[in-house]
């Protein structure tokens, strides 16, 4: 038994180092396969940005070896061969040339498989369209296990969409190396300013942490709990041009259910909206209500409007989560005197007994994508969570059936030119979230999702962590992990001032301006 195991193991080891060969020639004689081609990830009939990394995949049909022919409308072609692991890895330089010369055209993928009896079979080819629009060069996300209570090893990473390379922006590896140091040091919520993407923020929780803000080339650590806020800030949206960040301040909790496939629900016991002025290091209230919960602020493209979610129910106990139905609202913002209008309802999901969350307008403000789910402010763990698109001129809403599945789809984000968006889908196994890209054309048509490529096609299957809150970015993070860690572990924390009146209760939207904001 030991020898058998060892033998199988060394075969796997050899496969590991022999996989992703590239090159090779096409079989001269072959028959036509009668069965449907099965590949992982599913890259069949998708639309691809012309600058995307090679879409390496693995053939799941039975066979000993596979070959791939990629042919564009121009004369060029790429031939790739696999090892016994059936992984087809496309050489990057050839792939880049192929996409560059086929913008706006289709490239055809033909897969040949050598069956167990040694004969080659050709599967029905599939065509992928090469979009003329590029995708943003970077995607940042957090990697985290999908269902647990305490903080494990967490990190925020930066993925290069052109090379599929991943680098760490910040991890809590340092703390986790020391077993006696069991305090929570969660890292979360990475986002950048639309107009000036070098400006970024994330949180490093725990005793030495805070809001880690990169602004105008400097890193600061800020304690954003100020005045009578019931907690620090959580979900952020940068004003596109001004030194302002809208935050929600949430008391986040999670509950675990005894049965079923939705194992955990995350919710807020309380939530309000605040505005943080970076230059003045001051927080002021936007919505401070006792009879409502507001969360997920999001600025429109010119910063004149703030979208957010609002629930008319509040939470007294965890079981109330099923009553929490969020609607989409927005408020006008006057940048000169920093005043807000009364909130305006833009989508009343509670009427359908559902919850609408994560509103995000495209950079052209033409479309707004949001997640609709059964209840609560978290769609990630609910299978019913689907993406919806709203035409902001007509307020017409439709389900994004092109991407929605029986599993959860959420955490969407637009790329800088708004012709691509990404989201996290859990269609693989219902638990681990994976990143998908989808194209939106000028008519609002959405393409079949393209799974985020990796050098090893099985990477996402082997990765025992979920992708969480991904965001596009056009520029890389300009600071190293060391520089961030210096601020986190050794930097002084700046306590934000509170610029609103400290008041115990205001039972409806306060309209911060009416309370004497600057």
């Amino acid at each position, binding site marked *: 038994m030991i020898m058998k195991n060892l033998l*199988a193991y060394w075969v796997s080891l050899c496969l590991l180092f022999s996989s992703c060969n590239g090159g090779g020639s096409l079989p001269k004689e072959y028959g036509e396969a009668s069965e449907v081609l099965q590949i992982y990830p599913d890259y069949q009939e998708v639309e691809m940005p012309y600058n995307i990394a090679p879409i390496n995949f693995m053939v799941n049909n039975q066979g000993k070896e596979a070959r791939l022919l990629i042919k564009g409308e121009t004369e060029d072609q790429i031939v790739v061969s696999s090892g016994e692991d059936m992984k087809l890895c496309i050489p990057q330089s050839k792939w880049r040339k192929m996409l560059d010369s086929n913008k706006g055209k289709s490239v055809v993928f033909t897969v040949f498989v050598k069956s167990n009896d040694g004969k080659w079979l050709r599967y029905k080819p599939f065509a992928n369209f090469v979009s003329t629009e590029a995708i943003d060069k970077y995607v940042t996300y957090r990697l985290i*296990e999908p*269902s*647990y209570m305490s903080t494990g090893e967490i990190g925020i990473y930066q993925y290069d969409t052109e090379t599929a390379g991943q680098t760490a922006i910040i991890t809590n590896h340092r703390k986790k190396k020391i*077993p006696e140091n069991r305090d929570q040091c969660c890292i979360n919520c990475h986002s950048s300013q639309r107009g000036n993407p070098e400006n970024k923020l994330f949180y490093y929780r725990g005793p030495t942490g805070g809001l880690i803000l990169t602004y105008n080339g400097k890193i600061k650590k800020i304690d954003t709990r100020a005045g009578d806020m019931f907690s620090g800030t959580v979900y952020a949206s940068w004003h596109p041009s001004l030194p302002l960040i809208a935050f929600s301040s949430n008391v986040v909790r999670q509950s*675990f259910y*005894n*049965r079923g496939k939705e194992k955990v629900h995350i919710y807020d016991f309380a939530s309000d909206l605040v505005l943080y002025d970076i230059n003045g290091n001051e927080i002021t209230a936007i919505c401070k209500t006792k009879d409502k919960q507001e969360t997920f602020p999001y600025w429109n493209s010119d910063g004149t409007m703030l979208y957010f979610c609002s629930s008319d129910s509040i939470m007294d106990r965890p079981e109330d989560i099923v009553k929490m139905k969020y609607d989409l609202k927005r408020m006008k913002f006057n940048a000169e005197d920093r005043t807000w209008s009364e909130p305006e309802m833009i989508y009343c999901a509670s009427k359908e007994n559902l919850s609408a969350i994560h509103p995000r307008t495209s950079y052209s403000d033409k479309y707004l994508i949001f997640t609709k789910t059964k209840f609560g402010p978290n769609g990630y763990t609910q299978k019913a969570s689907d993406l919806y698109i709203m035409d902001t001129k007509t307020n017409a809403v439709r389900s994004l059936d092109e991407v929605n599945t029986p599993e959860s789809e959420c955490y969407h984000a637009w790329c800088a030119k708004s012709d691509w968006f990404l989201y996290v889908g859990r269609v693989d*196994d219902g638990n681990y979230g994976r990143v998908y890209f989808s194209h939106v054309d000028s008519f609002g048509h959405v393409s079949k999702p393209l799974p985020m490529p990796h050098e090893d096609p099985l990477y996402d299957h*082997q990765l025992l962590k979920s992708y969480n809150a991904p965001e596009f970015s056009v520029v890389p993070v300009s600071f190293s992990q060391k520089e961030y860690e210096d601020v986190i572990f050794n930097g002084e924390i700046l306590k934000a001032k509170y610029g609103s009146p400290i008041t115990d209760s205001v039972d409806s939207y306060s309209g911060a301006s009416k309370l004497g904001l600057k």
Partner: protein
Amino acid sequence: MNNSIKDINSTWGYRILFFGLAFLILGVLNSDFLYGAQDYSYFILNDIYFGETIRQTGGLLIYVSAFLTQFLFYPILGALMLSALLVGVEVAMERLFKAGIISFVAPVLLLFTMTSVGYAMYDRFENSFLFSSVIGVLCALLLLALSRWLCSKSWGVYAALLLSSLSYFAIGSYAIFAAILIVVDGFCHGRKSKHLCFFVGLLFVLVVVYFGSNYLFHEFYSSALYSPLPSPHFALLFYSSLATFAVVIAIQLYGEKLHRITLFQKPLWSYGLLLAMVLGAYFFSYRDANFDAEIKVRRLAEERKWDELISYAEGLDHPTRPVLIYRAIALSTQGKLAEKLFDYTCEFSKSKTRFLSETTLMNEDFCIYASFFNYAYLWSMEFWTTVGSKYAYLRKMALVSLLNDEPELARRYNDALKQTLFQRRWAMWLDKYINDPRSLYVDCPEFNAVQKETPKVDFILKLNRVIDSYRNYNFLSYENAERRLLADMFKKDLRAFSSDFRGMRDYYAKTGIPRCVQEAVLTCAYNGNPKIVKGLNIDMALVEKIDDFYKAIKSYGNPEVAKEKLKARHGHTYYYFYYFSSFK
């Protein structure tokens, strides 16, 4: 000529003796521990694991050691490998320092460290330490040998120092240890360059560790200095590892002198000294029968050898809570839980887990067999994230996903297990059920039972003690309600028992009341709730027996005396448990 042959023979004689003793201690006396250390370790043959492992101080050493740790799946094989490596350390030391029998001190100390891991095994502890501790020392000695080989050249010692500093990226603190050995060697041999060597070595080490910790591995400088040694949190292991370094340096300095002192005329004395050292190491190492018993019952549960588990648990004098829980699991799979749960000793002891909760040792299994699949998944992932990746949790997550009707999720975990040397056997077993989940319930009736008893209503789990799970929720099913009764009984909460028993009367009218539940009913009656027995069909012999028990208790003034005197006749009953059980 004859003398040198005799010397060689006696040297190899010591080595054979040491090898035999080390093998005995590791492979026979600590075989359960070795298996457990492997089960709570992690090595997966893929890029992700390689990348994560290599990006830490001493990453390559950890990677290689984690690979070798897989062989502890077969403790005999693992013990042979470890014993051979320990002998290897002695051979290297003898060659380098000519310290005779004294060369055995370092491997003996390593043996002591290995066998002192104990409950740290379940914690955020790298179990590959069993191999890395020996291989690391061997690497350091080899670097010293290299420096001696190079020392004939003027730059040789600097090259060796540079090499050992660079090897920091592969073997971590053992490289620092090697650099110290090289510098000390300079002093030993009175080389002219010794002081310069010292400063060059110090500079190399400081620069390399600073660079590595801050820019490459992102670790605190202090932890980068000692990794991959266990953190000072595991004080005994940390300091005994440092003591090994100190011993090697001391032998390097004084080994030859000590060798002359211990050069006994009769080799028997030398054998005696070696034997005493090894036995001393064993005597002072972590020896805890409960610790071994917990690993054993966990393994038996994993292999679903329920009868063996029950008889093993019943053979223990002072079982711990995890053993008790695993016995309860085994009884429940046999449908004998209510009948047999309290037909057991009530002399319990506590696991000496120190920093860890006992729940870490059994929660996932308990939740699986209690039909709380999400709870089982949650705990498996909780431990996975907080104490680190371990095969044991990966297997649980795969199994629970399948029981929870999520075959694709099970496949994700199972495919990871397939990339291991020996866990793949289990993965191949589960694989056929992932492809055909219904056959799992045919082949493994215990899973069919837990599947049937899954609560049919949704509720939010309260994250408290597992035993309280049943007590927190409303009526689920008769089978579950009976478990709830037993939980009340275990908690000695007679009020809750009386209340919960009301809902079970109709059920018991049809099935009959299990003996220990009858005993609990009578205990309630004797403790101020006589109405509870009204209308129940109670065994009269039992009534008489419990009556005797209460009379006897009154007659013995001292509870300890009563406990001892009544043990023979009433020992395995609920009412005896109610009065006398405690976790020491």
